[in-house]
């Protein structure tokens, strides 16, 4: 860096009460430079970013040896000085504009606020500027009169950026700006941010996803436990990471990792689950790999919308999962993935179409007829916590699931312990409430529960979307191991192309309620036929170095 | 306590001076300071509106013929007048009537009326009007209870001329003129009576010093001055219309609120004053007190003699001897009420009193109960006989018993327990209370009864009054069925000789008291508090409700 950096931070500490959450953080951001601050949840990266705006929160103790923004010492700044700076010289963009824009106010007024607070412009001039900003972000002038809830995810994220950029701040802090977005919208927003940097603004990009930032950032800082472990030029950090944690993170990124590669270093599960008592007797003999496990034909499901319209959640969906293999189902939110999953699970009836499970009719079927065979089909959800009875401990949850497997078979604490070991958990966790477990542990418990009745087929609905990259890696590895050992068939549903590619043998792409393309995973990636698939692939971020 | 009632216009007749009344009013303990006669010598000024707050339930009909309770009498006294009224000594004197003669057999009365009196609707007051009024009372559709009983012996009416009405009775009635003095038999315009009952209830038309202008339900009745009024009896109060331009007659059922409103000056006069506020007012320069005990019966508890356990006189006496009435009255009423030992109000000249019968004597009570067979006690300490507990049902009407009285009943309940009585107090709204009485589901009851003259004894204790009247009400709650008593009451009511009447009524009262049919408590309390700016307060009707013809508001 030749000139004096725009932002210079040395020895930043942030604490709440007796807990310190950020230790001795030092950062430099040059003019027109983009720094990415990467870390998993609880790493202190968001608090760091907020401390740079003087918004660390009520009761926060913020100290720094140096907190210098463009020659101004901010470590002693009063509220008034901070307010002059915020919005006009430093802008902030948060994740999920649905909650980061006031849902009761129009987007135009949110943008207007920034102008009103920092300029003496008359209302008409501000309105004109607002329109200009929206258009610059690729939105229509008319969108100024709409509220966050009326815009799509990508549109409102861009509106949020417009509000932050209203006064051309020297520094834009973007905290997970694309996390809540689909791949396409994510790509658009990243483009937009890159464009801003090209326009001369400095950017502090905060993310948990190395792949996302690698395309935009000049430099990367890796953060964990409130400390910066290493920082350097993007290329250098990605290709020659110094710190073990960075290496672990890089390894955990599924993008570009072929099927079967291990993403985590941690050993996923018990060596040989077959030795477990609970799985001696399977309700049905394991079918040969490649035989159809779950087959859906021409599923149609429509919903009438409040406005009187009709929504085709599933439009003639046909798919087949083979025993011991994984079918990846990928699509943006609202594409109908979840509705399809619910139909396959027999939780919802299709308007027409049918499903067969291991060659037997499954849907449509009276629930009473389906119930005895439900042991053959398991499910894993995005948010395991909400799928547990909050009043029960892990042991009780698993015992409950075990009891549904086979009537007359006494199943006790031993089986619970076996199950926990199967998914790589300490059997002692049986006495804990799920709420006290970490995200990864919870998902393991959820997997154990799905396995309890001894199914041959499992539907995984966004099973890793709520997890940090390193945890995601462990869970994906675990699923892989279990498939190999138990011969499970998976329907793996996700919006994340990289994850799906890593886990699937075959791939189905869903869009607007239809399966627009399907085939062996690598074939689809190599030669996408449908426009939507191509767009999806293009938008998917990959590690710049990969 | 004053021996004589503070009665009205006739007070002026009798004494010639309003002052007399007011001095008497002072007897209640209020310093005589602000009233017209005794304090300032200022001449009355005309104008201003009196704001009166009544604690009684708002009448559902302003025509006291309909039903007939005291709240109606209170307000109706301002716009209706009666044929007769009561003077200072408790004597019955003519008002709208000028006199009456009775035949020797006591069955025919010739009523003479004053001439030249008009109703506020312009119609004239004459014999046909009186006939129409009495016919109205006797019409079952009117649903009169009090007025109906008062004129029940009238069988025929002949209009002799405009000022003469000949009345034929089914049996002699010495109390007829007393009945004519009551507001429930007040005279209304015959023309107005022809309207629908709803209309007549909303704006009855009379000859009084005020007339009904408007009635805002749940809030107030607006009365305005009758500009053409002059007292029918010359010299009763001042000549000419009332000093006040009008009266706002509000209804404030909450005693505390009512008194607070008086203190704040929001209202000028309140009725149903609570004992504690009367006591507080005694020390106040700003507030005066008018004590006007009602005529008729005293406030008493009636003991239902028609069924066990009170069909045994020993048990009745035991109850009366067991309870501690005096301590309760002195603490709850702050000396504003005096213990009564009579069936009649202290303002009734023919009242008979015997304190010896009512002294508290727990030993005697216990002895009597043992004799009567209630000689066992159960675990709770109550007496039993044949395994049955000595339980007394005591329904209390929250409309008819003021809070202090309800508290007194609770104290009686507590002291009766010492002798082994279980008294079950049951607070009821008026409707349910009547219902319980009608089903004979009571052993004790307190029902005030206001009527002018000792004939009230016939109402309360004659066998015939154990049978409900057309309105459903029966008045002999003690259910005394004593032929000897009936005969005495009948002959007393037929006797016009006052000495003989008094003798018969005395005998009758002795039977009632010595038979322990009732436990007298005190006179029917009728206390008013008013701001001292209000002058000339004191005149009352025959039933001791205040009238405001001579009342005026002093300007500060």
């Amino acid at each position, binding site marked *: 860096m030749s000139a004096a950096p725009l932002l210079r931070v040395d020895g930043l500490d942030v604490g709440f009460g007796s807990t310190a959450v950020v230790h001795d953080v030092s950062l430099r951001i040059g003019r027109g430079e983009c720094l990415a601050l990467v870390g998993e949840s609880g790493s202190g990266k968001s608090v760091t970013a907020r401390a740079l*705006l003087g*918004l660390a929160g*009520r009761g926060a103790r913020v100290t720094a040896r140096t907190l210098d923004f463009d020659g101004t010492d901010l470590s002693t700044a009063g*509220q008034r000085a901070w*307010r*002059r700076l*915020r*919005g006009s010289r430093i802008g*902030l963009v*948060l994740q999920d504009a649905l*909650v*980061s*824009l006031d*849902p*009761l*106010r129009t987007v135009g007024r*949110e943008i207007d*606020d920034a102008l009103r*607070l*920092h300029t003496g412009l008359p209302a008409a001039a501000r309105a004109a500027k607002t329109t200009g900003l929206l258009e610059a972000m690729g939105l229509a002038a008319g969108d100024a009169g709409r509220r966050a*809830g*009326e815009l*799509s995810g990508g549109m409102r994220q861009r509106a949020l950026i417009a*509000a*932050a950029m209203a006064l051309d701040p020297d520094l834009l802090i973007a905290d997970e700006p694309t996390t809540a977005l689909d791949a396409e919208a994510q790509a658009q927003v990243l483009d937009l941010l890159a464009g801003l940097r090209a326009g001369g603004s400095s950017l502090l990009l905060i993310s948990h996803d190395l792949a996302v930032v690698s395309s935009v950032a000049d430099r990367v800082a890796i953060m964990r436990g409130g400390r910066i472990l290493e920082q350097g030029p993007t290329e250098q950090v990605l290709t020659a990471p110094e710190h073990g944690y960075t290496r672990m993170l890089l390894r955990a990124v599924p993008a570009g990792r072929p099927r079967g590669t291990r993403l985590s270093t941690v050993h996923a599960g018990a060596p040989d689950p077959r030795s477990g008592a609970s799985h001696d007797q399977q309700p049905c003999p394991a079918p040969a790999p490649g035989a159809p496990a779950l087959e859906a034909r021409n599923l149609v499901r429509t919903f009438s919308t409040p*406005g009187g*319209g009709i*929504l085709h*959640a599933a439009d003639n969906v046909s798919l087949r999962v083979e025993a011991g293999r994984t079918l990846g189902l990928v699509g943006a*939110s*609202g594409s109908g993935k979840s509705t399809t999953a*619910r139909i396959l699970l027999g939780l*919802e009836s299709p308007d027409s179409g049918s499903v067969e499970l291991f060659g037997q009719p499954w849907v449509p079927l009276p629930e009473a007829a389906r119930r005895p065979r439900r042991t053959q089909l398991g499910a894993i959800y995005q948010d395991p916590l909400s799928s547990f009875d909050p009043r029960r401990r892990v042991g009780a949850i698993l015992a409950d699931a075990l009891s549904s497997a086979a009537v007359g078979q006494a199943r006790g604490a031993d089986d619970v312990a076996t199950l926990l070991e199967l998914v790589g958990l300490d059997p002692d966790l049986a006495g804990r409430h799920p709420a006290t477990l970490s995200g990864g542990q919870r998902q393991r418990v959820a997997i154990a529960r799905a396995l309890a009745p001894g199914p041959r087929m499992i539907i995984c609905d966004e099973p890793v979307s709520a997890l940090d990259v390193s945890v995601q890696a462990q869970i994906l590895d675990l699923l892989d191991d279990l498939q190999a050992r138990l011969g499970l068939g998976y329907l793996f549903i996700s919006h994340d192309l990289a994850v799906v590619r890593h886990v699937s043998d075959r791939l189905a792409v869903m869009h607007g309620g239809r399966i627009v393309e399907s085939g062996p995973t690598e074939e689809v990636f190599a030669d996408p036929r449908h426009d939507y698939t191509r767009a999806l692939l293009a938008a998917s971020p990959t590690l710049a170095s990969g | 306590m004053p021996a004589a009632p503070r009665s009205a216009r006739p007070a002026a007749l009798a004494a010639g001076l309003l002052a007399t009344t007011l001095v008497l009013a002072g007897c209640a303990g209020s310093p005589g300071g602000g009233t017209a006669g005794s304090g300032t010598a200022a001449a009355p000024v005309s104008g201003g509106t009196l704001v009166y*707050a009544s604690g009684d339930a708002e009448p*559902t009909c302003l025509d006291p013929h309909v039903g007939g309770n005291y709240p109606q009498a209170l307000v109706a006294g301002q716009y209706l007048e009666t044929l007769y009224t009561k003077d200072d000594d408790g004597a019955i004197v003519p008002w709208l009537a000028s006199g009456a003669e009775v035949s020797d057999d006591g069955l025919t009365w010739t009523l003479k009326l004053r001439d030249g009196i008009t109703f506020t609707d312009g119609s004239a007051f004459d014999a046909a009007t009186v006939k129409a009024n009495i016919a109205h009372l006797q019409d*079952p559709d009117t*649903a009169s209870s009090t007025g109906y009983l008062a004129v029940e012996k009238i069988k025929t009416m002949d209009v002799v001329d405009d000022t003469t009405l000949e009345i034929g009775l089914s049996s002699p009635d010495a109390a007829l003129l007393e009945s004519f003095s009551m507001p429930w038999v007040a005279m209304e315009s015959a023309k107005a009576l022809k309207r629908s*009952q*709803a209309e007549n209830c909303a704006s009855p038309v009379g000859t009084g010093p005020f007339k009904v202008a408007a009635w805002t*339900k*749940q*809030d107030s009745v607006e009365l305005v001055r009758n500009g053409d009024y002059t007292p029918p009896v010359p010299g009763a109060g001042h000549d000419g219309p009332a000093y006040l331009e009008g009266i706002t007659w*509000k209804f404030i*059922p909450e005693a505390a*609120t009512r008194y*607070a*409103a008086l203190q704040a000056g*929001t*209202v000028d006069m309140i009725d149903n004053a609570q004992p504690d506020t009367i006591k507080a007012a005694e020390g106040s320069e700003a507030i005066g007190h008018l004590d006007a005990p009602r005529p008729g019966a005293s406030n008493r508890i009636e003991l239902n003699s028609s069924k066990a356990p009170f069909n045994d006189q020993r048990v009745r006496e035991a109850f009366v001897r067991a309870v501690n009435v005096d301590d309760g009255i002195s603490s709850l009423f702050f000396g504003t009420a005096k213990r009564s030992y009579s069936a009649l109000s202290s303002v009734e000249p023919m009242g008979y009193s015997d304190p010896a019968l009512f002294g508290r004597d727990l030993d005697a009570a216990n002895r009597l109960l043992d004799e009567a067979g209630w000689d066992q006690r159960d675990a709770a300490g109550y007496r039993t006989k044949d395994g049955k507990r000595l339980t007394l049902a005591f329904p209390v009407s929250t409309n008819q018993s003021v809070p202090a009285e309800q508290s007194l009943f609770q104290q009686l309940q507590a002291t009766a327990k010492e002798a082994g009585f279980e008294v079950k107090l049951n607070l009821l*709204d*008026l*409707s*349910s*209370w*009547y*219902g*319980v009485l009608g*089903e004979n589901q009571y052993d004790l009851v307190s029902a005030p009864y206001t009527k002018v003259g000792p004939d009230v004894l016939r109402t309360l204790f004659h066998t015939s009054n154990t049978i409900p009247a057309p*309105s*459903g009400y029966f008045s002999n709650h003690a259910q005394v069925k004593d032929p000897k008593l009936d005969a005495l009451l009948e002959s007393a009511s037929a006797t016009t000789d006052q000495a003989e009447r008094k003798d018969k009524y005395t005998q009758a009262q002795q039977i009632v008291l010595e038979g322990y049919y009732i436990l007298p408590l005190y006179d029917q309390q009728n206390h008013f508090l008013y701001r001292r700016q209000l002058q000339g307060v004191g005149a009352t009707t025959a039933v001791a409700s205040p009238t405001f013809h001579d009342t005026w508001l002093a300007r500060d």
Partner: protein
Amino acid sequence: MTEQALPGLPGGPGGPGDRAEGGLPHPGGTAVVPGRPWRAAGAWLLRRVGSAVFVLWAVATLIFLAIRLIPGDPAEAILGGPGSQASAEALAAARLEYGLDEPLWVQYLSQLGRLATGDLGTSYALRVPVAQLLTEQLPGTLALAAGAWVLAWVLALGLALWSGLGGRGAAVVGSALEIAAASVPHFWLGSVLVLLFSTAWGWLPPVSNGTAAGLVMPIVTLALPLAGFLGQVMRESMLTAMTSPFALSARARGESEAGVVLRHALRHAALPGVALSGWALGSLVSGAVVVESIFARPGLGRTLLQAVTLRDVPLVTGVALVSALAYVVVMALSDLAERAIDPRIRDR
């Protein structure tokens, strides 16, 4: 708890939780065909009127059935219960008037017919058409309730604002004040106010006397408990808004704390208050019964109390219908207000 239960309310109505984001199958991305606005408005009106008619019909039916289900002679009930000691002739007349000799369904239909034409019958006790009585009594209660409603909102919003701006101490104190206010029974509060402001200090008239001063204590008595309840939900909502990401966005834009409160949080705070309007009306009507008695004000509450003591069934029915109608109207208005404040509510 998913549903936001109004703290401390026995009748805590469905709060904003009613319209929590829906289940899985309809994410917002797909285009929704918007209905034409006038058609939507028409449908809304139709739905509201329909629900109003239904509620009124049901209230009338309930009371009709209740009178006949309660053991005893309905004619007697009409004439004021067993205590009325009604004569045989009166009972016969009442039976004739109300058609009680007819089969039940004929009676029912004819009563509905009368109600449909606006004939609420005649008060047994006051011998006046019920409709006329209600018309007379309504303005007093309206003035009282409207005054109390405004005051309660001002107080609740004030407390919410103070909590929003004043930091944790203010929030704790505000919460304590609200709980205390919400726990105070009207009848006690009214008494204590009279004791202090009329009896002890003589500042205010203890009864309604037609002046504005006479309205002060009744309104305060009626408003304080309501303000306590509203304050609790508004403050919660305010504090949630103050810690929400959009508030952080606003601060990052340079907005001051006061600006965040006024421009953002205040509306969010008002929302649950508006949603509770129907409940608030109920609380006001219930409170009016007590307050009107204590302060000797004319009004529906006092009329109702008197009607109850006199077993005046036609009048009680009339008050119930008026109150139900008011509820329906207030619900419609609060729905409109909610739509105005919160465009997220499309269809409920």
